[in-house]
């Protein structure tokens, strides 16, 4: 995976985790053709092994967020014995609370930003929902700046496959292979724009954390 893309996505999840004082945060990108969400960046719990994992995009809270394009907060999940059992098994971590917001670009869902176990004061209020949605909007904007709408696929994690280009209207499945993906993304990525995107996130973090 292109280093700049990876850095950008990692910055998104690191900042999200920091803002909400959360145990973990993830970005999933949507592979529309396969009907799956793919862990693309993880901060915190599961960071070492989750990137690249896939699960059906029609299921679970992240799935609902991807399909509906709406943010959502749920709390008290550990009381639910059936909560996302498959996902919980694969992540070895079942959160008690979860916030998720769509990454939207022009009405199109690129993926989902998820925050697991935010600090208790950052839960279950309309204000937090708004904050999450605002941050997700900034993150999507940063992604849009960093990755131009060139029809190139998102490079897969570790160069071992790919997710169709979420910014492209002509996504055709995981076609961006180890060679094409990183090459296309890297050639299209201008270092100045990358810097802009990262600066955007850094500024946002400062504002939101009141520093």
């Amino acid at each position, binding site marked *: 995976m292109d280093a700049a893309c990876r850095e950008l996505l990692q910055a998104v999840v690191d900042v999200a985790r920091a803002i909400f004082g959360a145990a973990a945060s993830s970005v999933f990108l949507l592979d529309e053709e396969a009907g799956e969400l793919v862990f693309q960046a993880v901060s915190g719990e599961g960071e070492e092994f989750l990137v690249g994992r896939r699960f*059906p995009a029609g299921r679970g809270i992240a799935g609902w967020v991807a399909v509906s394009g709406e943010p*959502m907060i*749920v709390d008290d999940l550990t009381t639910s014995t059936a909560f996302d059992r498959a996902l919980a098994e694969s992540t070895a971590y079942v959160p008690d609370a979860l916030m998720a917001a769509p990454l939207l670009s022009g009405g199109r869902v690129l993926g989902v930003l998820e925050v697991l176990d935010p600090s208790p004061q950052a839960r279950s209020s309309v204000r937090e929902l708004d904050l999450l949605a605002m941050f997700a909007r900034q993150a999507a904007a940063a992604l849009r700046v960093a990755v131009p709408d060139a029809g190139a696929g998102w490079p897969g994690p570790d160069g071992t496959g790919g997710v169709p280009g979420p910014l492209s209207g002509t996504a055709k499945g995981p076609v961006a292979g180890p060679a094409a993906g990183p090459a296309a993304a890297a050639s299209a990525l201008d270092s100045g724009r990358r810097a802009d995107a990262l600066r955007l996130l850094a500024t946002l973090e400062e504002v939101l954390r009141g520093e």
Partner: protein
Amino acid sequence: MEAAMSTPGRGLTWSLRGRGPADVPVVADPGPWPPDSGGPAATGRGVRVCVVDSGVERDHPAVGRVDGSWVVVKDPDTGETSVRPTETGDSCGHGTACAGIVRRTAPECELHSVRVLGERFSGTGDVLLAGLRWAVEQGFDLVNLSLSTTRDRFARELHELADQAYFARTVIVASAHNTPVESFPWRFASVISVGSHQEDDPGLHLYNPSPPVEFFAPGQNVPVPWLGGATIRTTGNSFATPYITGLCARLLSAHPSMTAFQLKNALYLSAANVRFRSLPSLPAGEASDESSESDEPGELHRSRESPEPPEPRLAAGADGTGN
């Protein structure tokens, strides 16, 4: 309305020619039933509610009986959609949550489910549109739609469908989007649109004097049924909407002839932020004058501490009349 205009003679009345008021009688519901009069309880009994969402979990104790479950299936080759009965439950928990809020607000209503999410990823609005159309065609009294689509190309069809539902007395109660983006069908005047307020009162609804979203209801940290028989808490306009759907079900159970505009009026009159100006106190024998000084701003009279709507003909049951 193009289709209707092209098919005259189907009972459409473009103007009242050759007939008088006696030829178009309407028998409206009576006013509110006095307490202990034996009138129908406003519990939702006899009212058919359809939740268009991610499905509803079967046998969830906080949802109770689900009278019908359907799913919209899209043919991956032709793109055609169809609606089928299904034994599957909920793919996410969202639909179960909405159904549970309707159930606890209107305990005796009939609950039906049309699943438009979770079959596979279907980010397009056509599955949503197909599910909503089917629900309107079935003639449900109320359709809870805690969803919307941002796709412009579905806006016109959704608009026409919402208008069709309005006149057919299928009232669509639709969530406003949680973020400030354009989406549909909550934007349309022919649906009842709902957003969240931040108050802790689980029985509080407000009228928005600055639409498009018309009503606010509890949507923050709301306890809801979830998958696996569980109960969780959640936040969003999605959960404010079924509370209003439930209120409408209660109204309709006590006053089955109410139209969509009457329901909106009842919700308006019973909203906690709608206050009533006092009547001017006139010397005996003087006619009322619209321009009397009591009509000036600032003369709002906070005479209604009780949530009981003062306009009894329409508002009975909005807050539990009949209990």
